[in-house]
């Protein structure tokens, strides 16, 4: 016992005084869905090995990630909401958009599927069925990429943002995982990116009910922050990272990444930025 206590104290003291001084570091804001997928844990150690570059990740929603980029607080962003990205570019905040990879969104709900969205042909039809039954649906409600996608699908189903109220539509105002926690607690429907869902540890009675509509496609884009409008950002490092993320090696790692045997991401970087 004594020895264990001593070891614990030493571990704590060692950690307390350990300084980390890596050669080069950059900051990148990424979406929660990317972080939750666990792909970062595969890619970043390789980046460090190949480039000697330590990439620090700030994990936030796409809206917040672009905000951090617009303030020049990060050197690059990896996000998934095309319209918001285009606005970000228009305001001169980004150097260019570089497609990296895609995965997809899925609809989650109670295992027994009380509304029957399994039989829906499109994502919009599935949402219509949920709305018609007024069955509880939990939205991110946080201006994230997933939230924007969800709202776009609702629009296609004939619902404007203003129509989405009432006791059945609940905006959690939280990240993907927290929203899934809410949906699990209420046994409600929700939309999630596939990666977060597969890794999520508190599924309870929820199950994946609908996927495969091309509308549920989810493109991830890297945008280095523009040094002209934000002096002081390490665009040089962001560009090095971009080169690496669009290399054949990254392609192999991204395409080969599996969670529970399922392929998650498809690499689709082209030879030049958009």
């Amino acid at each position, binding site marked *: 016992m004594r020895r264990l206590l001593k070891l614990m104290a030493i571990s704590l003291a*060692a950690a307390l005084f350990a300084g980390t001084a890596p050669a080069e570091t950059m900051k990148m804001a990424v979406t929660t869905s990317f972080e*939750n997928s666990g792909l970062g844990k595969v890619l970043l150690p390789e980046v460090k090995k190949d480039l000697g570059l330590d990439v620090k990740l700030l994990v936030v929603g796409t809206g917040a990630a672009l905000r951090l980029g617009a303030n020049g607080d990060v050197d690059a962003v990896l996000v998934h909401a095309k319209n918001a990205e285009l606005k970000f570019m228009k305001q001169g905040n980004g150097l260019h958009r570089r497609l990296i990879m895609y995965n997809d969104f899925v609809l989650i709900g109670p295992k027994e599927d009380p509304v029957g969205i399994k039989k829906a042909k499109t994502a919009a039809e599935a949402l219509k069925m949920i709305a018609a039954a007024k069955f509880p649906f939990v939205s991110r409600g946080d201006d994230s990429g997933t939230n924007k996608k969800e709202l776009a699908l609702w629009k296609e189903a004939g619902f404007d943002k203003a129509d989405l109220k009432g006791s059945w539509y609940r905006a959690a105002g939280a990240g993907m995982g927290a929203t*899934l926690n809410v949906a699990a607690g209420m046994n409600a429907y929700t939309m999630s990116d596939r990666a977060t869902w597969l890794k999520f540890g508190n599924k309870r009675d929820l199950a994946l009910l609908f996927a495969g509509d091309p509308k549920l496609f989810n493109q991830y884009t890297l945008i280095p922050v523009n040094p002209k409008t934000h002096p002081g950002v390490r665009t040089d490092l962001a560009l090095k990272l971009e080169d690496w993320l669009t290399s054949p090696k990254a392609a192999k790692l991204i395409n080969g990444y599996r969670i529970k045997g399922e392929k998650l991401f498809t690499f689709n970087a082209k030879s030049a930025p958009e």
Partner: protein
Amino acid sequence: MDSIFQGLFQAFHLVLTLDPDLYRIMALSLRVTLTAVVIAAAIGLPLGAWLAVNRFRYRRLTIAVLNAFMGLPPVVVGLFIYLLLSRSGPLGVLGLLFTPAAMIIAQAILITPLIASIAHQAIRDLWSEYHDLLISLNATRAQRIKALLWDGRRALLTATLAGFGRAIGEVGAIMIVGGNIEYSTRVMTTAIALETSKGNLAFALGLGIVLIGLAVLVNLGIHWLGRTERASNW
């Protein structure tokens, strides 16, 4: 219920296996919070004493504001510090955002009013007791404050520990200004929030139990150092 038992199990497992990641974030939690407490105490304790012995026009207002600031919303403090330290903010050139220094600043701001308020209450009572004595000894203002701080040290320790308690469990402000970056600014509370968001509830609870244990150890350590709460001295 299952998750709760699993949480307890996780807590013991984490501590006993000397998980290096756990010890790293524990150490950062301690480093950030203890530094913030030292800074806040260095400002808050003299400020509390000064407010107790001085009479000036807006004293009541100052004290009311200080008391109200005990309940500063952490998220608002975090947001405020973020806007100050952001590259597009006034102090952006310092490059402090998303570093432990930014987290220390945020926590120090959060707990200084708390420490100052509690110190002020304690010293005011002591001052009414010492008032005549110190005046008749013709003690200077600085000497009065010194005597009061020393004789009120037990109550001031409580004030400081209250500050520690608020800071070590705080998540809203440091999440914003620290960014919860792995190996860099991730601390116990932000790690708990992260694990909860991943749905790893038992693991999150385990971390929470470790955090509570850590707070108890720090409090015990301070009592041991200060020789308070001992048989001959309580």
